[in-house]
C-alpha cells in the first residue's frame, strides 16, 4: 500500500495519560462470564495485540471498550477520562475507533456513502439537511479516505457487490475517518489473500506514530510483526502480557494457544 498520510501533524500536543486503562472489567451474559476481571493499560501511541483461542473473550473485550455492550463491573478509562458510562457514539467522537470481525457495513449504501458516514459521524453537522458542496471538507475528506483505501473504482457501487477483501479495506477506511487516537482492529486479516495481507501489514505499519491500536489477530505472523506489546487471553481472563518476543517464546502460551491450533 502506498504511503498513508498522517491524520495529525506529528507535533500535535497529545493528552497526558495512557490511551486506555481497564480496571477489573467484567462482562457477564446471564450466568456466563465472557470476560472477567480484565485489567491492563495501553499507553498513548502504543500498538498492542490481543491473542487467545476462540471464545477467550477478545471480541467481547472490544465491545466493552467501545460501549457496544456495557461492562457488568469494572471501569474503562480513555486518555484519563472515565468512559464506563459514556454511550458508544460519544466514545467514538472522543477518538476511539473499531472495525468489526464480520464486516458490519451498510450493504445497500455505496462505498462512498459508507465512508462519508464515517467522516460525518465524528464531525459536526450529523443532522445537516443540506447536501455538501464538492469542495466541502467532509467530501474532500471522504474522497481522500477513498483514495487511501484504494476503493475509488468502486466508489459508487453498493457495498453488497464488493469482494470480501474490498469490504475489509472499506471497514478499515471507516475506522480511519476523522482523527482516531486509538483503533481497535478485530481480525482485519481474516479471509484475506497473502497479497492483501501484505498490504494490510504495510497499512498498519504506516499509521502515524501517535495513533495507537489494539489488534485481535489469529495470524501471529501479522500480529507479532506490527505490535509492541501482546496480551494473551484465556477463558475470559488475561493470561499474560509481554513483548512479541517474550510471548513467542513462552511455553505456557504455546501450550494453550498454539497447541490448540493457530486458526482454531
Amino acid at each position, binding site marked *: 500500500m502506498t504511503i498513508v498520510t*498522517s*491524520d*495529525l*501533524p506529528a507535533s*500535535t*500536543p497529545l*493528552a*497526558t495519560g495512557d490511551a486506555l486503562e481497564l480496571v477489573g472489567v467484567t462482562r457477564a451474559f446471564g450466568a456466563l462470564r465472557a470476560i472477567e476481571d480484565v485489567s491492563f493499560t495501553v499507553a498513548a501511541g502504543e500498538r498492542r495485540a490481543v491473542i487467545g483461542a476462540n471464545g477467550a473473550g477478545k471480541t467481547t473485550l472490544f465491545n466493552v471498550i*467501545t*460501549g*457496544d455492550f456495557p461492562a457488568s463491573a469494572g471501569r474503562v478509562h480513555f*486518555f484519563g*477520562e472515565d468512559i464506563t458510562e459514556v454511550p*458508544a*457514539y460519544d466514545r*467514538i467522537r*472522543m*477518538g476511539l475507533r473499531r472495525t*468489526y470481525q464480520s464486516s*458490519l457495513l*451498510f450493504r*445497500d*449504501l*455505496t462505498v*462512498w*456513502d459508507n465512508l*462519508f*458516514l*464515517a467522516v*460525518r*459521524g*465524528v*464531525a*459536526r*453537522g*450529523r*443532522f*445537516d*439537511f443540506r*447536501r*455538501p*458542496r*464538492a*469542495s466541502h*471538507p*467532509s*467530501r*474532500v475528506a471522504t*474522497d481522500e479516505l*477513498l483514495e487511501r483505501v484504494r476503493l475509488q473504482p468502486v*466508489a*459508487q*457501487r*453498493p457495498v453488497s*457487490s464488493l469482494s470480501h477483501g474490498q469490504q475489509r479495506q472499506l471497514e478499515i477506511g*471507516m475506522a480511519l*475517518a*476523522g*482523527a482516531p*487516537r486509538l483503533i481497535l482492529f478485530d481480525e482485519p486479516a481474516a479471509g484475506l489473500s497473502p497479497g492483501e495481507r501484505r498490504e494490510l501489514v504495510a497499512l498498519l505499519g504506516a499509521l502515524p506514530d501517535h495513533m495507537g491500536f489494539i489488534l485481535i489477530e489469529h495470524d501471529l505472523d501479522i500480529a507479532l510483526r506490527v505490535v509492541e506489546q501482546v496480551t494473551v487471553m484465556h477463558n475470559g481472563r488475561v493470561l499474560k502480557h509481554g513483548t512479541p518476543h517474550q510471548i513467542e517464546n513462552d511455553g505456557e502460551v504455546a501450550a494453550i494457544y498454539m497447541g490448540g491450533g493457530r486458526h482454531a
Partner: protein
Amino acid sequence: MSAAHWRKAMNFTDAGRSWSGGRAIAPPRQTTRTAAGSATTSRGWLQSWRQIGARHVAVLLAVLVYPWIVPPFFTYQIGGQALVLGLIALSLTFLAGYGGMLSLAQMTVAGIAGYIVAILGASGTPEISLGWPWWLVVVLAIAGGTLAATLIGWLSVRTEGIYTIMITLAVGMAFFYLAQQNYAIFNGFQGFQKVVPPVVLGVDWRQPMPFYYLALFWALAGYLFVKYLIRAPFGIALQGVRDNARRMSALGFSPVAHRVAAYAVAGFIASIGGVLLVWYNGLITPGSVGTSWMINILIVAVLGGMRHPVGPFIGAVVFVLLQNFAIDLIDRERFNLVIGLVFLVIVLFSPDGLLGWWDKLREWASRRMAQSRTNPVRGNGWRSIGVAQVRPAGRR
C-alpha cells in the same frame, strides 16, 4: 461552510480535552471524479437539472395541465385529495422507507395539525375556535404537529419493527378517544365543521382549481424535499440507522437522536398535509383520526411502494380512484373488500408496491431489448447488471 470553519468543526472543541484533531485539507485535486455523490451536487442545481429526464417533464406537464382538461370533480376530489393524502403518506414513506420505522400515527400527526387549524382558526363552532389570522394558525399548526410527532417519536423509538407499529397504533387510538371525549377543546364527537381555507391574494383557495394547485405545490415541495434530504448527511445517516443502528453508533452517531429527528421531519411533512386535509374536507372530526384512516395512510404508502418518494402519490391516486369508483364497478357496496384484496395482492406479490411492478416491467423490457440485440448470448451477465441498475444505491 468554509474549510477553516470545517476544520474547527472537526476538532473536538471540548476545552477539557486538551487534544486537537483535524487536518489541513488540500483543495480537491481532480474535479472530474466520477463519484455520483459528487456528480449529483458538485455544481449544485446546475447538475441537478441534468438529472431531469423526459418523463419528469412529461409528468410535471401532465399534473400542471390536468385541472384544465377534467371537470372540477376530478380536479378537487380525485386530484386534490390524492395529492393531500399522498403528502401525508409521503411522511410515512420517508419514515418507513428511509428510517425503517413504520408508524401508524402519521394520520394522528396530520389530525393534530388539522385540529389546531380548527381550534385556533375559524370554524362553525365559534365558542371554541379562536379565529386567529390564518397565517399564524398555519404556522402554529405545523409547529404543533411537528412537536407532537417528535413526542410520538420519542416514545416509540425505544422500540423496533413490529413494536413500533403497535405503539404508534395505540398512541393514535389514544388521541382518537381523547378527541372524541373532550368537548372543551376538541368539541367531542362532532368535531369542527366549516374549517375553510382563507381567501388570499384575491383567490378563494377552496375552489377546485386553486386548491389543486395549492396541494400540488406542497406535494411537489414535499417530494423534492424528501428527494433532496435522502442524499444529505442527515438522510444518509438515517438510512445507516435503518440498516444497522449499532454500527452507526460505532461511527459516532446517536441512533436514537436520529430517529427522533426523523419523526420530527416526517411530522413536519404530515402536518402540512394535515392542514391541507382539513381545508380539503372543510371539517375535522374524531373519525378523521380513527383507525380506518390511520390504516388507509399505510395502505396508500404500501400500494405505491416505499422505495421512492413518488410511491405515496401513485398509491394515493389508486386509492382515491378505488374509493370513489369501486361502488360503480361491483354490484354491492363492497369497497372495503376491493381495497383489501388489492392491498393483499400488492403485499403478497409485489413487496415494493406498484413501483415494484414498474421496475419489474422495465427490467423485463430491457431484458427483451437486450435479448433482441444480443440474441445468441444467453449468459447471466445481464442479470447482475440489470439488478444493479434496477436497485440503485440508497434504496432497499
